[in-house]
């Protein structure tokens, strides 16, 4: 689907957002494909929160919506944004975004 956004370069990029664990239940999806103008990690989560409602919003964002919830593990093409530019990490064309809640095992 195409979700236009304002204030960005006038081109779109495709991306895949993959959901895991509880996020699958709460979105009802394993993955979604988007055409979006380039955007940051935080902006993507704001977009997804608007799209999937309060349950997801409360899991993805801080209460004021300005930070990524600390329990979100956010990978862009396998790299954790904590080791990129954090919430300002730019999602490039054809990227795969993987979203996990805080999980563990071993």
């Amino acid at each position, binding site marked *: 689907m195409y979700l236009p956004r304002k204030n960005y370069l006038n081109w779109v990029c495709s991306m895949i957002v993959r959901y895991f664990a509880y996020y699958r239940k709460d979105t009802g999806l394993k993955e979604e494909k988007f055409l979006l103008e380039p955007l940051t990690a935080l902006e993507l989560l704001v977009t997804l929160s608007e799209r999937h409602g309060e349950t997801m919003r409360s899991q993805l964002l801080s209460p004021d919506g300005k930070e990524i919830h600390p329990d979100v593990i956010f990978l862009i093409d396998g790299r954790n944004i904590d080791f990129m530019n954090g919430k300002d990490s730019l999602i490039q064309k054809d990227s795969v975004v993987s979203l996990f809640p*805080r999980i563990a095992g071993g």
Partner: protein
Amino acid sequence: MYGLIGKILRVNLTEGTVAEEYLSDVLVKKYLGGRGLGTKIYVDEVDKDTDAFAPENKLILMTGPLTGTFATSAGRLMWITKAPLTGTIGCANSGGEFGPELKYAGFDGVIFEGKSEKPVYLYVKDGKGELRSAEELWGQSVFVTTDKLIEETDPDARVCCIGPAGENKVLFAGIMNEKNRAAGRGGLGAVMGSKNLKAVVARGTGGIKVADKEGFLAACTDARKKLKENPVTGAGLGAYGTEILVNIINASGGLPKHNWRDGAVDPDADQISGETLAEKYLVRNKGCFGCSMACGRVTKIKDGPYKSAGEGPEYEAAWALGSCCGIHDLAAICRVNFLCNEYGMDPITLGSTFACAMELFDKGILTKEEMGGNLAFGNADAIVEFATKTALREGFGDKLAEGSYRMAESYGVPELSMSVKKQEMPAYDGRSLQGMGLEYATSNRGGCHVRGYLTSPEILGIPLKLDPLVTDGKAEILKIFQDLTAVVDSIGICLFTTFGIGLAEIGNMLRTATGWDMSDEELLGAGDRIWNIEKLYNLSQGFTREDDKLPPRLLTEPLPEGPAKGKVCELDVMLEEYYRLRGWNQKSVPTKEKLSELGL
């Protein structure tokens, strides 16, 4: 003595005698219990030149001071001996209910020595232990053995036993309790089999004294509250089990496929994931003694060629039998995991050994005729077929039963065994998780993920975040993790508690239970001491720096794709720093100063 009962049993299987012994307060405080105390007793009592299967070898079962108490997730027990798979110190732990039951029966542990002429089992009940015949049980599965022994002894009894794999000395046979809980790695079940010891049965109605009852309850309540409030220990582990790791490790480029040959990004990984397991086969989750996390999986394959029911698989087993073998039929993986529990066999080494055989076949080194079957990448039916053959040592299964290293070595290609010190590495590629590479190389029991689980900071962000692709700082954190793990393994609680609580909470539970005046630093120091006595034993067995290594594939073959594309494990850089932080010289030998500091 508080926490521990203060008594153990010494069972001489050659003589058929069972005797009580008292534990020394000083020794217990210095080595804590479980892994530490059991290892100390083992290295003091067993001549270093003893073969794992010799009657002179001893097999030690030991619980910890928190085992069976109100402390959180306090169901752990530890088995210690020389590991036949590796030749290193062997220690493997298990949860369930057996450890607490043994303490309620009046004993902290059991030392088995000698070899029985005929199969026997030990029955421990309320302060007494006796050896009984197990001749009719020999050859029976873990499940049948457990049911029969409960019928023969007490309906509330708990059973530890081996299956046919242990009897047949499969080098990765485990010791099972309550049917599906496993002290899985290193082949300790084969040592039990070599002694003609089929099982240990415990039933007790006693209790455990703690030093400061009110303080202990407060400490335990605090720890339990923190575990419950934590998203991982309070919800995630119970909902999805350890299998939830499949997708995140894969997305991070760390899920090795095809015997670690073809990279570590598996496009079909979701088919064997925790999410898929929950959707298709999960009946319910299940907890061990006193555990609120309840990460165990009760699973059922309702129809099809693999129709069966049981427990598991854990993440590492699903990977070994799955991506590592190029197999994505989760029903088949579950079936083999159930068989491993029935036969008493480690599914990590089994799956990795299958994968090694599959690569040998792929390269034309092995033929279908020699295998008597078709162990090819992706053949799900074959892993079901060869699981049984391996446990029973039938045909080519006899070779598989030796593990991947000995099998590959017999064909002149030991480098194709993805093992460290002859034990197969599980499920996390050391090229994309650099710290895990160091962890495998330095683990005192060979390739193993639970001696210093750096996946936690490298991927999961617990309790801190470390970039998996860099080497800086990994040695320092690994040492802390290894020492803390030695503490956790020794006091009798589950390692998974450390996803939600830390040394402070663990120390509070331990101090109030035992009355030990011991700071958190001293507690971690005890972990350091335990790590070093294990190291000293391995040195006595001829292991040197040359053995603290990884398979050449991880050091010379860069990953072809994923976030770690182009990376190999930069082991040497981390290893030098690790030795320095450990207080060892560059030959990996502890210095005199270090040993003096540890009171060794």
